[in-house]
Each structure stands twice: as structure tokens, then as C-alpha cells.
């Protein structure tokens, strides 16, 4: 499980040491979470450089505000909340992605990806995740389609399907009701499914 409801002992120690200005503890905290934070930010913003910058911003904010962390939630949730909020702000500022018409050319769907997508969507056999992950073109397509979603829907689907958080954690991070998480996730997946189906027509 990526996150836990209560703060782990290790995190509590890290937090305390960070508060005391222990640089080694700060570095340890960064190393512990940097990949996951970077991955989520990248899937939300779609740009490696921006994701790297936002990841740095996240950890700088985390360290700067570690004294305000009241340990009522897990450090994991708190760090992700900062990361997601920074990324959502960034996305809204940039307004890079918007819902709109979708065609294969715009998304850059290669012939190979199109075929793989059709096979994936209409093959009645249970798909194997490893096979999907190996299909680089299909993965790139998914990332591009994710960018077509509204950032609030994108955030929910990334936190659930990529980071593997449960609904309660997502609600805590996004500071919304559990019902809102459910409805956003439903809309996000439906939107994604519709886009995928549109590409195969």
C-alpha cells in the first residue's frame, strides 16, 4: 500500500529531525518520496521539465512548512496534497489542456498504437498489465489522453490508478467529499473511455 492512514514511525522521526534542521533527514525524506511525487506530477502536467520543477517546489514547500505539519494526517498524504495543489495551480495557470474535439492526428496516434488500442479495447480476454506497459505507443497515448481531461478529473484518476490511493486518501488530499471523489473518478474514466473509443472508430 503506498500510503497509510496513520503516520509511520519512520516518518515521525524524519519530521522531527527535519524540524530540528537536520539536513540528512531532509534529504532522506526527499529521497523517500521524490519518485512517487515526480511520477504523479508528471502524469498530471505531462511535461518532464515542469514536473521536475514542480517536484522541487513541492519538497521546498514541505521542508519550509514542516513545522506547521500537525501529524493529524500521514506525511505521505500531506506531501501529496502539497504536490497536487501546486500542480493543479500550475495546470490552471498554463491552461495547456482543455476538453475539445479529439482525433487521431491531434493525439498523434500511430498506426501501431491504433491497432494495439483496438485489440486492447475489444479483446474479450482479461488484459495483462505487463503487456500493456510494454506497449510504449499505447502508454504514450494514454498519457496524451489524460492530458485531455480536465485537471480536477485528471488528478483523481492519477491518484487512484497510478498512485493507487484509496478514495479516502484522495478526498483528504484534494480536500473534497468522498462523494465528489466518486463522481469525479466516474466522469474521468468515462471521459477517457469515450476518447479511447473515439480513436478506434
Amino acid at each position, binding site marked *: 500500500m503506498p500510503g497509510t492512514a496513520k503516520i509511520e514511525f519512520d516518518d515521525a522521526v524524519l519530521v522531527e529531525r527535519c524540524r530540528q534542521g537536520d539536513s540528512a533527514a531532509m534529504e532522506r525524506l526527499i529521497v523517500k518520496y521524490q519518485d512517487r511525487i*515526480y511520477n504523479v506530477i508528471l502524469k498530471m502536467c505531462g511535461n518532464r521539465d515542469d514536473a521536475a520543477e514542480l517536484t522541487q517546489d513541492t519538497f521546498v514547500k514541505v521542508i519550509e512548512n514542516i513545522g506547521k505539519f500537525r501529524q493529524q494526517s500521514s506525511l505521505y498524504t500531506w506531501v501529496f496534497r502539497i504536490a497536487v495543489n501546486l500542480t493543479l495551480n500550475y495546470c490552471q495557470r498554463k491552461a495547456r489542456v482543455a476538453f475539445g474535439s479529439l482525433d487521431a492526428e491531434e493525439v498523434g496516434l500511430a498506426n501501431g498504437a491504433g491497432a494495439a488500442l483496438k485489440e486492447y479495447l475489444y479483446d474479450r480476454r482479461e*488484459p495483462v498489465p505487463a503487456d500493456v506497459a510494454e506497449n510504449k505507443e*499505447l502508454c504514450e497515448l494514454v498519457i496524451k489522453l*489524460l492530458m485531455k481531461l480536465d485537471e480536477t478529473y485528471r488528478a483523481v484518476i492519477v491518484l487512484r490508478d497510478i498512485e493507487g490511493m484509496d478514495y479516502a486518501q484522495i478526498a483528504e488530499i484534494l480536500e473534497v467529499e468522498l462523494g465528489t471523489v466518486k463522481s469525479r473518478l466516474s466522469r474521468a474514466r468515462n471521459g477517457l473511455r469515450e476518447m479511447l473509443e473515439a480513436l478506434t472508430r
Partner: protein
Amino acid sequence: MSGEGQMSMDKIDELLNSFVDGELTPREQTEVERLILHDAKIAARLGALKACKLLVGSVPVARAPAGMAERIMTRIRMGTETAEGQEIVEIRKGGRHLMARRLLAAAAMIALVAVLAGVIYTIVASQPGADRSTVSETWQKSTGKAVKLQQIAGSAGSTMKVEPFEGQLVLVTRDLVAVDAFINKAIETNGLQYSVTKDPIGGNMYSVQCAVSGLNTLLGEIETVWTRLDTATLLVFDGKAEYVTIEDVGAGQVGRIVNERSIKERIRLAKDFSVLNNIDRMLPGKEILAITTERNIGLINIPKPVLTSGEKSAKAGVVQQPGGGVRLTIVVTAAD
């Protein structure tokens, strides 16, 4: 599809998503499983959702670029340095703020001292010029003891009309018998016109009618009794049913007020003494009254009659003022 139908579909979608994510209660899960079994359309929808979820979840995890932690640490250190720089600025600002506060405090102290000085000055300066010019102070040896004598010589010759004084002096003491006897004797000895009534709570009320000079003499004699008092309060009436109360009043202050020529001046001086005494009560060392009594001894002390010889001539020395009689009720009462 109708709105109601759409809502229903949205609800089903939410349930299916929750089913896929394992977020349903056992009861809801059973419900959804039954739906899937009986509705091929819903089963297809569930399949699509699962595929979608798997597709997104299958996207490879990206790792943070190399050196990310070092770069973050560098930024944090730089930020700390900047923060420290700002802290120094803040400390400097704080220092300036502290200095400003000290200056303000000093200014407030100066202002307070100025106000007090003003009050003291008005008290000191309120001694009528005519009186002050005619006050003769002589030091005579009387039975080997230095006695300060003052004469308000100008009182008799003054043509300025003196307004009558009316007031009440309340002396509270635990040594009621001795103090009462002392006051009584002093009034009688000085030949002052008076009447006495019993105070309901114990003690006596002496209604004294005399000239200002007569009261000066009386005050001069009873001044020593102040050490045996718990409290002494003077009420100065303004002739219009209003009065000023001076708590912890001294014999000298009573004398000073009575010796003012007009009611207006008496009221003003009474108010000044009232403020002064109130402030003095709040100060631990009684500095204010110490200043007024030590530095202005000739002015604050009770004007006493001149002794022109070694014989007891206090009564003879009393110079009666034209008009301006004194009506003072001296209440000698017991402390609780």
C-alpha cells in the same frame, strides 16, 4: 435518455467504478455482482471501466531525474540563507522598533512628569501673591527648640474680599478617645465657636465657625494628631451643593485650601490635591507628596500664627480676616 435515466446511469457508473476499485461495502458489492450477472450492458460497461483502469495503471512509473534531491537541498539551503539574511534585516528592524518603543516610553514618561510638574506647580503657585509676599518666616528659639513661624500678615490688611469656606473634615482613627479629646481641647483652647453632636457610629462631630486665621491656628495644633489617624478626608463644598473630595488629605493641604480667597480657587486646588493624593497612593515611595512637602515647606505647611514672645500668645496672634468665615465640620469617628 431522460435526465432521470442519466442520473441513474451516473449512479450505476459510480457504483461500477467503486466496484472496480474495491471501495464498496459487502452489501453493495453483492448488489453490483447481481446487476452484472443479469445485465449484459452493465457487464460490458464494467469491462470497459476495468480496461480503462488497467490502461492508466499500466503506464510506466517515471523516476525522478538524477540529482533531484541534491538540487532540492541546494534550494533549501539557499532559501535558508536568504531567510537568515531576511532575519538579520528583521532583527535590525526589530532593533529599530525597540528603539522607537523606548523613545516613545521615554516621551510618555516625560509627558507624565510634565503633567505632574504642572499639577505641583499649580499647587505651589496657587499661593496668593499678596499672601506670599507678606508671609514672614522667622525662626525663633523657643524652649530650646526651633519652631517655624509664619504670619499671614497681609490677611488683616488685605482689602480683597475673601469668600467663605465650607467643608467637612472626616478623621477616622482607631484611637478614637484620645484623638477626639485632643481635637476637642484644641478647639476650646483656641476659643473657636463650635457646636458638638454625637456621631451615630461613635465619636463626635464638631461644627466650627471661625476666621481663616483661627482655623490656621487650629490646624497647626492638631497637625500632630495626623499620625494617629487611619484616614483623613476633606470635602470642599462649592456653595452649589457640589463638593470635591480629597482622600488622604494632610493638615497642610487643608490649610492651603482654606487659605485660598475664592471658592473657585479652593475647588481647583482641592481637585489638584485630590489627583496628587491619588497618584501618590499608587506610588510606593510617596514621591509626589515628598516633593511637595519638602521643597515647598513654607507654602505647603500650615500657616501658623507668629509668636512674638516666649509667652503663649497664640490667641492674641490670630489675625481675624474680614469676612470669609470658615464653616468646617470636623468629624472624629472610629475606624472599623
